[in-house]
């Protein structure tokens, strides 16, 4: 996929120098800072931060444990609600979740407790001799999980805890999903994502089969027949298309594909890097893409969005990151045409300016052109091949692309559950996916138990 950029110059500098550009975006708290910050927590009752957390972490309790010098206890408080507590501490948009809800945001203080950094402190400093969660007695049941991303692995871990065996089917070479392939490198640097997966798997009872893709060499009908339940955590593997001619031209690429390559690159100096680039979209992926290009040495990176700042799905915090990296943000411009040079390669893009009229986005009839050596699409993801070609998966009720589920993450097909980005309503948040996986595991457990009871001869 990144082959379409091979005509571009390579990143300047050595791998090690470039790696330094991808150090932690937010450095961890020192012990002293953690002590000071944890002392700021008011230990609220029925705390709004906990209510704002999709996984319901008891924030006040874990922070009090940090303050009392019980870091292992703090980590357990986090992990029992969210086994991806380490990744979420780094990638959660806390500014719209727990930290937004913190009572210390109140007008007179306007400074929330740094919950994300404290969560990271607890997870980073916990020292467990063994996996901290025990498995319940074996139930003799085995559940299939499709997709080893945050939703699938969260589900697998909880099922393992409840005494079930789990087989996870993963299309790629590594587990972790977007934590491994999709998050900006400076948010989850190094091999953190793999270490977290290893930690999670150390509970036991979870087998992962790699290179298994739903609809290709894996059939939902077969899983459904063979396993006691199936959980689909297949994400949204396909990048949306602009629907313009020239979309397959050299120089045009989906942002997620470049990010995945960047994250897996053994040698950053071997990456093609455009001198001037356009990123289309206004979500957190668009910002991750634009900022990483800047860190790789791109001179001009312009994010283009067809609406205004207020409609951007990227959080204010993310937009600030883009600004501090001197990413140009062009609003009110809709992609119109990919401009190609004589060799058929991307040389820029033509946009039509837009505005709102009576609440509707309309084209104004004026045009702009932005020169660029590469264009990256970050306009959202859609359902990948798997669920679209698998005969049984095609039968699942959908809302647009997304699979419809009930409050217990059950699909329309009994025994098949789904969660994470592939379901409606998903929020495209890691923490939300983790919660889906956890809730689905509890639902699977309950359903299996009650089915067993129903089958009991009376």
């Amino acid at each position, binding site marked *: 996929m990144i082959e379409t950029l091979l005509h571009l110059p390579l990143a300047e500098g050595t791998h090690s120098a470039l790696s330094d550009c991808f150090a932690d975006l937010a450095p961890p708290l020192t012990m002293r800072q953690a002590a*000071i910050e944890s002392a700021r927590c008011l230990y609220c009752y029925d705390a709004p931060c906990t209510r*704002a957390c999709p996984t319901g972490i008891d924030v006040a309790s874990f922070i009090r444990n940090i303050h009392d010098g019980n870091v292992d206890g703090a980590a357990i408080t986090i992990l029992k609600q969210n086994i991806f507590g380490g990744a979420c501490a780094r990638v959660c948009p806390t500014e719209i979740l727990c930290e937004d809800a913190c009572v210390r945001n*109140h007008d007179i203080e306007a400074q929330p407790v740094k919950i994300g950094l404290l969560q990271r402190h607890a997870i980073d400093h916990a020292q467990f001799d063994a996996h901290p969660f025990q498995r319940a007695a074996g139930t003799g049941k085995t559940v299939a999980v499709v997709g080893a991303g945050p939703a699938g692995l969260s589900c697998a871990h909880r099922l393992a805890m409840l005494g079930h065996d789990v087989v996870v089917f993963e299309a790629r070479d590594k587990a972790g999903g977007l934590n491994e392939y999709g998050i900006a490198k400076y948010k989850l640097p190094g091999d953190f994502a793999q270490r977290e997966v290893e930690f999670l798997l150390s509970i036991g009872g979870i087998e992962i089969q790699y290179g298994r893709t739903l609809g290709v060499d894996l059939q939902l009908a077969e899983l459904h027949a063979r396993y006691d339940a199936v959980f689909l955590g297949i994400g949204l593997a396909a990048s949306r298309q602009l629907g313009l001619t020239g979309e397959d031209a050299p120089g045009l690429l989906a942002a997620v594909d470049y990010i995945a390559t960047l994250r897996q690159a053994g040698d950053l100096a071997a990456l093609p890097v455009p001198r001037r680039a356009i990123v289309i979209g206004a979500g957190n992926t668009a910002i991750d893409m634009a900022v990483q290009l800047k860190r790789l040495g791109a001179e001009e990176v312009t994010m283009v969005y067809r609406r205004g700042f207020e409609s951007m799905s990227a959080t204010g915090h993310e937009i600030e990151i883009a600004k501090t990296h001197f990413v140009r943000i062009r609003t009110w411009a809709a992609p119109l045409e990919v401009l190609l040079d004589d060799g058929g390669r991307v040389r820029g893009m033509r946009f039509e300016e837009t505005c709102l009229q009576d609440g509707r986005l309309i084209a104004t009839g004026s045009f702009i052109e932005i020169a660029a050596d590469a264009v990256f699409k970050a306009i959202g993801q859609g359902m990948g091949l798997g669920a679209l070609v698998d005969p049984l998966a095609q039968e699942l009720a959908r809302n647009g692309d997304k699979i419809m589920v009930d409050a217990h993450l059950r699909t329309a097909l009994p025994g098949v559950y789904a969660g994470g980005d592939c379901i409606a309503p998903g929020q495209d948040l890691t923490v939300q996916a983790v919660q889906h996986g956890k809730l689905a595991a509890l639902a699977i457990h309950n359903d299996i138990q009650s089915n067993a009871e129903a089958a009991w001869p009376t």
Partner: protein
Amino acid sequence: MADLSIDFCGIKSPNPFWLASAPPTDKAYNVIRAFEAGWGGVVWKTLGEDPPAVNVSSRYSALHGKNRDVIGFNNIELITDRSLEINLREIAAVKKAWPDRAMVVSMMLPCEEAPWRELLPLVEATGADGIELNFGCPHGMPERGMGAAVGQQPDLIERVTRWCKTYTRLPVIVKLTPNITDVRAPARAALAGGADAVSLINTINSITHLDLDRMVAYPIVGGASTHGGYCGAAVKPIALNMVAEIARDPATSGLPISGIGGIGNWRDAAEFIALGAGSVQVCTAAMLHGFRIVEEMKDGLSRWMDSKGYENIAAFSRKAVPNTTDWKYLDMNYQVIASIDQDKCIACGRCYVACEDTSHQAIAKLITAGPRGEGRRYEVKPADCVGCNLCEITCPVEDCITMVPQASVQPYVNWTQDPRNPRAQVVAALE
């Protein structure tokens, strides 16, 4: 500007802030630095008989708050470990150089007449303004029959005080220990012995915390520890009560009091003075922050006095004493009810859980709908509120919860008059 100067039982001082007898007043170097910083007086660290005391290492420990702020402080240091001769020479020199500052010399000697008779003239010869009898040191010295061992026996207090009044013309301040059941007994004994004033409190027997790995308390000396004397902000409430007890005891109500115990700012000082103190002594706050703190203490006290129209210390001294009484004289018909300022409330829920779990279930938790999801609103249930102040205390926002006095149609009735008191008539008869 308010006049901060005082005349405390004949001892004059440009302001009421004295450094208490302790490490900060151990030697000339420190005391000169203190006077340069603006302290009104010092009580020189306790002199004893030669050979001087010998101290151990380590000596202090503390109770820390959430951000390592020192709430309480504990020490096992003894009286001066320097010779009498050096101390007397330095006292004389410093007093000569700083004639306007109060120089009080703390003393601790065995309960025998001879040492007092010999030593007191030597102290008087330094030009010091007064002496303070250390009947309070709770660690080390009581094991040798001195310090708190004397302060816990009123007859010894009276006897030693009388010797001092016999052998010196200097004002005698008796420093009391709080490690007793009723502080009025030693105060009355001091007065009976002729004391010109009392000072209190000395430190409280204490162990601040332990090393749970080594299973030994702090401060650690070798592999062991011993109880120390507790001071700092944590002891202020205990000290204030003891000062008030003496100030409102008819037997000692005229006795000057030098207030000691957790004074760290001008407000603390004003509270001690309002409850009966004529001067205040500070130690822990200076040990934690240095002598410079007296600057803010003087400035704060002076500005507050100006704002209240108090021209001098005497103008508000003892003003809170008449309002400090026995429980039985409190108005049974008085009622306050909590009120939450919803504009200031940050919905932390602390008042709710405190009242719900441990008090009177007088705060309601309401679920509200808002543009950004559901929220919480906490409201007082006036009919269930007994006015205990717990919610106001646990609230993290200043002035968010206030206790509002209710207009009472009932006249003042205290417990001795209250019809609900089965012994009211008996009590009334006894009064």
